[in-house]
């Protein structure tokens, strides 16, 4: 216990770094993936190669991707964010596409027949109807980002991964455990929060 008390400060600041890293990456990833997914769903000819390219990014090991980014972006926080955003894209874009495909064609037909413009159909029908499906994907993306963010410590981006690396270097199992449990706790909380959101939005749709 006295060890934990002595290290509370560093654990807390590493946790906050991790939250910032994952939170900012997730937000940026979402802001890119929604328009990209809508575009890919509308234009199949562009959409399929786009998905293949994003799939290819996903197959690059996280350490290798970070290493590849260093010569371009250098070390640090934003390099890690770039890598995390790139990883999350395939999960999120695929899900935005399935979300749009989960909207029954007759519903889109009714919306067109009532005189909605394509943008109104997207904003008032397709996105609200597809949201539960999209959030299921967002959960997977969020948990992946939180997990992969541990590797970011390797390029000086901080986070709970730094505790694990320090623990390995000093052969201190307690540091490794603190980092590991911290990451797991963040992932579980994020997953639970999105699950609650998903359920609430689904309930509204079902009446």
């Amino acid at each position, binding site marked *: 216990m006295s060890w934990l008390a002595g290290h509370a400060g560093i654990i807390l600041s590493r946790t906050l770094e991790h939250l910032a890293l994952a939170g900012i990456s997730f937000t940026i990833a979402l802001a890119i993936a929604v328009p990209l997914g809508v575009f890919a769903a509308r234009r199949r000819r562009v959409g399929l190669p786009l998905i293949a390219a994003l799939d290819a990014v996903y197959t690059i090991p996280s350490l290798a991707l970070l290493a590849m980014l260093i010569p371009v972006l250098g070390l640090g926080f934003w390099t890690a964010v770039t890598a995390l955003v790139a990883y999350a894209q395939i999960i999120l874009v695929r899900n935005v596409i399935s979300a749009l495909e989960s909207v029954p064609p007759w519903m889109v037909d009714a919306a*067109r027949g009532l005189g909605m413009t394509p943008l109104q159909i997207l904003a008032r029908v397709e996105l609200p109807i597809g949201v539960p499906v999209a959030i299921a994907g967002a959960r997977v993306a969020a948990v992946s980002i939180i997990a992969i963010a541990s590797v970011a410590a390797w390029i000086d981006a901080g986070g709970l991964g730094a505790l694990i690396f320090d623990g390995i270097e000093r052969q201190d199992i307690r540091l490794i455990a603190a980092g590991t449990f911290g990451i797991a706790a963040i992932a579980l909380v994020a997953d639970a929060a999105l699950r609650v959101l998903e359920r609430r939005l689904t309930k509204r*749709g079902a*009446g």
Partner: protein
Amino acid sequence: MASIRFDGVRVVYPGTARPAVDGVTLEISSGTLAVLLGPSGCGKTTLLRTVNRLQPVESGRIEIDGQDTAALDPIALRRRIGYVIQAVGLFPHLSVAQNVAVVPNLLGWPRERADARVDELLAQVSLEPATFRSRYPSQLSGGQQQRVGIARALAAEPQILLMDEPFGAVDAIVRASLQRETRRLQRRIGATILFVTHDVDEALELADLLVIMRDGRVEQRGRPAAILAHPATPFVAELTGAGDAFRRLGVTTLGELAAARAASAQAPAAAESGEIPSLAPGATLREALGAMLASGAQRVRITGDGGESSTLDVGELWRALRSQDADGRG
């Protein structure tokens, strides 16, 4: 008011050789309830969807009140045409009131006007506004959902209503009451309705103008009684069951029979009698026969709005059904 005119309309789906709609020319005058009847794949739904330009045409033109719809903005056009589909098409994430108010909101009506219109429409389709306004579609029965679908289509007071097999998914009793209400609403608002169905009884029940389609073409058009009396082709005869006297009984009205009788100058004067049932000219032969059976009389009195009357006896009814001359051409 709004008349619809199809002029040589042709639709070919990409990758198919046979046109879905093959040169249809058809005029539907204002305030008419026209029913497109035919088997699956005859092009009736495709033809309906050309009116609000959900379906582009390859050639030909569609005019509303003499105006070529190709020259209009499709979004604005759709907002002034009511649209009801078989799948109902209610948005599950919106309440009943929000569903009905979709078009008024698209048109930018002020909140109070849209709210008032929602309540008025729900009452019109026999749904108590206070009870149903804030429910969601999944909390409604199939018939109630379709009523909301009709209210939504009528929201912006359209002059034209397109109904694509709207009652296909509800049970027979609900369908009958929705059909009655459709007629009632149509008389009240005077809209021109284009109604697609593959159900012959529904078509005969509703149609002012019956349009029978086959392979993308119009096979025959006319009043239901006229088509039953004189089917133009064996296909029409078989589809409509024109040989079935009971069916003619149900669509031929007393007024039509009286007119045909007047044309052949054999109208008997109204006979004096205390106990014979009195019916309006709009009543069908089926209702006349029913009234005779119920009262024990062998004749009914046909009493017009102006008080003029004549009688129809059971022998004439018999002859009318046998000779098929109650064709309503009068």
